[in-house]
């Protein structure tokens, strides 16, 4: 692969790193060379009386449940408790254009040459170059160094679309569901696939929140991670829900979603029996949810992310409530989320595209 010529912009004043945690942030030590220039938003889940120790030298703000309740008041009901889904609160309070979110059991991976992978730098590259959702390029991301559009790729589509989301992957412990974990407890992902590619328009995918970056201006309000955890009938579907909503809205607004590099090293395998309990309902509900998202159409009048999201919440209430009353609650929470987002991110005409760190 050709060496990099142009330096990737650091974006250190334009990007926040959002980390949900209930235990500790020791993992940040390994990331220090790559993360230290950036501002961190730590969302502390679980018992708010516990003190989370942040390693020295990082610039951060930390929010626990008390803070969330104080800042959002009654609207705090849309933020999950006792689940990493609470991370989306971090997206909401951020004033930056870009968000990178990572789990606290994810470490720096090595590429096949043995070099440490700067995952954040790769996400930035992905977000700053266009996507190609309308036509599949067989050599993957054509904007990457060392590759291009192939013969037969329509010239009229070679400018691409803006990239809204960069979805990274994981070496070591793969992101499997509970049944797969039970059947294959020893399987590790050792395959380094040196590709970034755009997920085509009209195709859904399972979005994992472990190693994820997005353009908050372009898609932020769609990144609601749903109602999970304490008091909810389901867990481990937070990022999935956000991903399906985000993909439908990106397709509608002609924005791109990339997946592939960068890899991180996922170190902790969660307990499959615990996972099974959380996922159980989701496994059945998914079979109704997927056809719903596949058939969703958003009216052309929906031009902002918020408009699209509110429209989506109406359709969720209308079409998924019959699956379970949970979806009525979820649809209401989706509305609350947008109200809270707009309150914390005022921009005059409520367009997410214009909001860029309005001072509070």
């Amino acid at each position: 692969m050709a060496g990099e010529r142009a330096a990737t912009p650091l974006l250190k004043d334009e990007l926040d790193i959002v980390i949900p945690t209930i235990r500790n942030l020791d993992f940040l030590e390994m990331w220090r060379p790559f993360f230290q220039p950036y501002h961190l938003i730590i969302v502390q889940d679980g018992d708010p009386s516990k003190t989370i120790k942040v390693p020295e030298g990082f610039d951060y703000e930390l929010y626990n449940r008390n803070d969330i309740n104080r800042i959002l008041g009654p609207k705090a009901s849309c933020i999950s408790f006792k689940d990493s889904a609470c991370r989306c609160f971090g997206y909401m309070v951020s004033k930056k254009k870009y968000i990178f979110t990572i789990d606290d059991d994810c470490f720096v991976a090595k590429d096949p040459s043995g070099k440490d992978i700067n995952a954040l730098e790769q996400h930035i590259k992905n977000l700053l170059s266009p996507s190609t959702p309308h036509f599949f390029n067989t050599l993957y991301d054509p904007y990457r160094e060392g590759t291009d559009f192939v013969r037969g790729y329509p010239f009229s589509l070679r400018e691409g679309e803006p990239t809204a989301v960069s979805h990274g992957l994981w070496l070591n412990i793969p992101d499997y569901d509970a049944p797969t974990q039970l059947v294959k407890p020893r399987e590790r992902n050792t395959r380094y696939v040196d590709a970034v590619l755009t997920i085509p328009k009209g195709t859904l995918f399972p979005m994992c929140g472990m190693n994820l970056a997005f353009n908050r201006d372009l898609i932020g309000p769609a990144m609601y991670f749903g109602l999970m955890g304490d008091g909810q009938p389901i867990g481990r579907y937070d990022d999935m829900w956000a991903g399906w909503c985000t993909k439908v809205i990106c397709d509608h607004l002609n924005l791109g979603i990339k997946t592939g590099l960068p890899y991180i090293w996922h170190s902790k395998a969660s307990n499959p029996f615990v996972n099974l309990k959380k996922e159980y309902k989701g496994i059945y509900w998914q079979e109704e949810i997927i056809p719903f998202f596949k058939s969703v159409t958003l009216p052309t009048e929906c031009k902002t992310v918020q408009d699209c999201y509110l429209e989506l919440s109406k359709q969720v209430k209308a079409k998924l409530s019959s699956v379970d009353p949970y979806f009525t609650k979820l649809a209401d929470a989706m509305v609350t989320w947008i109200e809270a987002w707009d309150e914390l991110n005022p921009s005059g005409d409520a367009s997410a595209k214009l909001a860029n760190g309005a001072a509070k």
Partner: protein
Amino acid sequence: MSQVIIQDDEVDIVIGAIQSDLTSFMEAWRPMFSRFHLIIVQDPDLNGELKIPGGFNLNLYTKSDMDKVVGSSSSTISFSGYSCRYFGYLMSRKKYIISIDDDCIPAKDSKGELVDAVAQHITNLTTPATPFFFNTLYDPFCKGTDFVRGYPFSLRNGVECGLSCGLWLNLADYDAPTQALKPNARNSRYVDAVLTVPSRTMLPLSGINIAFNNELVGPALLPAFRLTKEGKFRWETVEDIWTGMCAKVVCDHLKLGVKSGLPYVWRQERGSAVESLKKEWEGVQLMEEVVPFFQSVRLSEAAVTAEDCVAEIAASVKEQLGRSNPMFARAAETMVEWIKLWKQVRSQ
């Protein structure tokens, strides 16, 4: 993952000979090809006898065979240049067909080992595809990987794979302007993945390194769209791009999968992109017009075989594209002729 057992006699390797001396090509591929039956088709514009080394189980077809089979039944079907391979597809009775350009040799993977492109294509074709939902860990049927969390269980059986599109190291399949702008650009990135191209997503299906299930999609691999001044370098053709879009529409309609990625082949230096750039570009511009058509064309419930699908696509091409340009009308005609010929040959 269970081993895929495939009978050697289920496979035909079809080679279109654009060059006379196939010795180095055949010797390079001997370890991978020798188990299988080969069909070599000589470009009807290529005079003289082909030079082919011994020790292969093969059938050779030339212009005279084409004349015998096609005879007077069609004047629109041309097997000239890269399209000569389609005659091989027509003649084959095997279930799986693998086709590689005669300027490609085996590539080496990132460990430095020679890639058996034939075996990989067979694996791709005989394991399920997943066109209805994207798996972020790529082909879930590959050893060492699986479906990820959030992948619907009802879609985990997958569907049959109709087409396997491989890639190229060294000289990538770029178009002439791209290669001319970057004359030293060579593809050195080995991406260790196979993935299913989602349903209703179009792609440029390069004919350089391709395999397909002849029983399921055979008739859709057809010679139909020729540039007026089509040449003997891939830079000077779009025939496979047109065919590829038809084949993808057929696969999408019949709920078959199209995979892309491994295997890689090593594509040797040949020709000059700048020289090819000087040729006529009318046909290439026309291809821009067809993209919206292929993205939106839908076939009827009555189309249940590849032949049915091709017939319907041809009718739509004639009606919707044929009016704006006679090249499309001709392509539609050729497609109809092809299906007739296909059925005729099969019935003998």
